[in-house]
């Protein structure tokens, strides 16, 4: 029954003959391990086609959805991380396999007549695969891919005569955006794979036409492809798959950095490791000579490779070809080492990588914490995140006078001598107020030392009246501090404020009745005679936002304001920026431990 059906099918398709030809191709000298590389490459390509097609089903190409859909694949979809990891690491394996295949073909002399055309299709296939690598790197639209791809596009742009037009065509406009993504996706998932399939069919057809190039001397009698060579090929493919799976599982899929942001510096920009040598190479071509390293040298090398079959006709030429490619590989290896070594000792780069990792983690957390990503995309999450934006806003707007734990907010140590306003780390916390109301520290640069209030009433009061306090007065001061600090409702002090609720109530009482404070400060009831900052809601979100908006408002320093700019009133910062800055100063941002959602 089955037999007659197969017979029927064979009469109509001739599949038996094709299968026979495919399986019983003669392998001169029998199966050998050195012949496996072509098959491993084909296998890797099949993995890429399969995983790529499934990833494509879940990918959305636009500046607001590319990163987001990849994030969703990686973190939310069933087996998404696995498929993506398989695609990512198989791509890297392919680069290695391409080199091995090329070396085997060269050493065995398989590129020489009559196999020139086959060799050329191989080189074109190599270039097409590198094209896949370049286009695929951008698609997740993360900082890494974005900045690396911009470099590539700009290199295209320096090509003589046509460069700028070609760059515009590649990018789909004058700058990177959604058209870049739709174009890269079409090339990556459609055009290049189709060309590869066509060329691969030709490549394999030509291989069959001319037969395998046996490495002499033959050690065994000839044998058919099946099953010995097929077995070796499958074992080699299995080894490739095992290596790829190791990376996929070890790194739980592929890396996804923070979403691309043209306004955000990215000092960790590097190409994928297999292009690192080119990246390093470009460092040696100053100014206008970049074109030599970026275009002329690579083009000359590729042109020479096309000429190899002719050079290889002579015995010396063949040796030269092998030596040439070995030298290329050694050079590339050396350059890769130099690039990696330089980065290893580059502290700035190391910090940038850490910051990039932290930003990637943060945006992932924010997306989960928010229960999804807003329609504006993941960048909106980061733009409204105090932990992400606070330090940057502080460094850019506050750190010329203020400090944050002795730094500019971003972690860079600043000179204390240039500190002309208070250190705001822990502002309005009990600890911070303790330092303010301490005769020993109130006039230090961390508080009023750098300001015109250095010799003002507050400093005088603290130094004169809070010195050597009796035990009962000390206890009162402690309660006042607790009360003022509680006005801020700092997230970090929530538990403390709750535990000391009684002391806080007492503290308020003392503060209201203690003539010394309310002499100058307003507290809880309107006080037209107040000349110092309002203590009602001191350090709260509302207080800080209003203060940052205009510190010269009568509620705060009035006309006595030192040099603090009215950031909101003068339009230096937007309401959103002031809100984010206030949240950051108050330590008020979404924290991983607080998220209850699974």
């Amino acid at each position, binding site marked *: 029954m089955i037999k007659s059906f197969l017979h029927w099918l064979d009469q109509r398709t001739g599949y038996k003959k094709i299968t026979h030809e495919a399986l019983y191709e003669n392998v001169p000298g029998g199966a050998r391990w050195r012949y496996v590389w072509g098959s491993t490459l084909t*296998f890797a390509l*099949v*993995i890429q086609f*399969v*995983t790529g*097609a*499934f*990833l494509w*089903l*879940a990918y959305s190409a636009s500046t607001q*959805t590319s990163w*987001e*859909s990849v*994030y*969703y*694949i990686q973190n*939310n*979809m*069933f*087996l*998404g991380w*696995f*498929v993506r990891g*398989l695609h990512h690491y198989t791509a890297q394996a392919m680069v290695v396999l391409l080199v091995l295949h090329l070396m085997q073909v060269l050493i065995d002399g398989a590129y020489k007549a009559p196999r020139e055309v086959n060799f050329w299709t191989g080189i074109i296939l190599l270039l097409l695969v590198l094209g896949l690598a370049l286009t695929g790197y951008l698609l997740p639209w993360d900082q890494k891919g974005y900045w690396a791809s911009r470099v590539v596009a700009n290199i295209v742009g320096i090509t003589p005569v046509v460069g700028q037009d070609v760059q515009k065509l590649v990018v789909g406009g004058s700058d990177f955006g959604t058209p870049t993504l739709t174009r890269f996706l079409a090339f990556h998932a459609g055009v290049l794979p189709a060309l590869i399939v066509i060329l691969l069919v030709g490549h394999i057809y030509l291989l069959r036409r001319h037969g395998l190039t046996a490495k002499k001397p033959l050690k065994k009698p000839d044998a058919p492809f*099946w*099953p*010995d060579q*097929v*077995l070796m090929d*499958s*074992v080699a*493919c*299995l080894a490739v*798959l095992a290596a790829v*799976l190791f990376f996929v599982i070890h790194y739980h899929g592929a890396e996804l950095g923070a979403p691309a942001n043209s306004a955000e510096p990215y000092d960790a920009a590097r190409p994928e490791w297999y292009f690192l040598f080119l990246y390093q190479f470009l460092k040696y071509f100053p100014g206008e000579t970049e074109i030599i390293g970026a275009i002329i040298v690579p083009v000359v090398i590729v042109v020479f490779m096309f000429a190899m079959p002719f050079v290889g006709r002579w015995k010396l030429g063949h040796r030269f070809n092998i030596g040439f490619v070995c030298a290329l590989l050694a050079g590339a290896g050396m350059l890769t080492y130099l690039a990696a070594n330089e980065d290893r000792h580059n502290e700035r780069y190391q910090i940038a990588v850490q910051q990039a990792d932290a930003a990637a983690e943060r945006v992932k957390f924010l*997306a989960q914490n*928010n*229960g*999804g*990503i*807003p*329609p504006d995309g993941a960048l909106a999450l980061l733009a409204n995140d105090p932990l992400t934006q606070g330090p940057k806003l502080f460094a850019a707007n506050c750190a010329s006078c203020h400090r944050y734990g002795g730094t500019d907010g971003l972690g860079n140590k600043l000179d204390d001598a240039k500190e002309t306003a208070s250190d705001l780390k822990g502002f309005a916390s009990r600890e911070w107020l303790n330092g303010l109301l301490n005769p020993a520290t109130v006039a230090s640069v961390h508080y009023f030392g750098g300001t015109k209030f250095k010799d003002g009433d507050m400093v005088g009061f603290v130094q004169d009246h809070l010195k050597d306090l009796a035990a009962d007065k000390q206890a009162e001061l402690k309660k006042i501090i607790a009360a003022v600090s509680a006005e801020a409702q700092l997230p970090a002090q929530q538990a403390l404020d709750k535990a000391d609720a009684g002391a806080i109530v007492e503290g308020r009482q003392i503060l209201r009745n203690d003539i010394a404070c309310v002499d100058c400060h307003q507290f809880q009831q309107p006080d037209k005679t107040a000349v110092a900052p309002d203590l009602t809601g001191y350090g709260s979100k509302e207080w800080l936002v209003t203060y940052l908006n205009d510190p010269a408002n009568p509620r705060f320093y009035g006309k006595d304001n030192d040099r603090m700019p009215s950031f909101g009133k003068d339009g230096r910062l937007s309401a959103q920026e002031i809100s984010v800055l206030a949240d950051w100063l108050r330590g008020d941002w979404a924290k991983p431990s607080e998220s209850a959602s699974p």
Partner: protein
Amino acid sequence: MPHHSKPKEPDRREFLKKACCVAIGGALGAVPVAAGVGLYLDPLLRKATNSKEGLNVRVTTLDNLPADGTPRQFKVLASQVDAWMKTPETPIGAVYLVRTTDAQKPVRAFNVACPHAGCFVAYVAEIPNYSPETPGYFCPCHNSSFKLDGQIARAGSPAPRGLDELECFVQNENEVWVRYQKFQAGTAEKVPLGA
């Protein structure tokens, strides 16, 4: 058991090799294909974001409904999570609201989706090819027609059931709320799918 002569050593080795080829080859193909198919099946494994009970949504106020019982079409706005994207307030569907004279149930609500294949039914002042002349709903796709109370009008309408009526209530004096639900199209039974 009858004692068979052992196959010759080389034959057995050949068979083993071939078996290994098939086994390894199968594994090689299975890994990417199984992983990819798993990824594709994700929607089946995902829990529905909305319960089948639907979502209570404030749609409009009573004064926006014509007193004469003419249906009016309204968007249903709600927060939506679509794959990764969370949209705060966005249209998730539409309803027809009809004012009634019944004090217990002053408004009736119908999902605009035709229960035949899900097209958006239109309100028409006169149902085509139907007598007596009467206003109702008409589906532009396959010509199903429904009376104002949602029942199938013209016999031979392809719709397997009348328009899907939604639970509707008035609260805070004049706010019209609808428990918005979608239903499986193409079945005689009204099978809820969620909001």
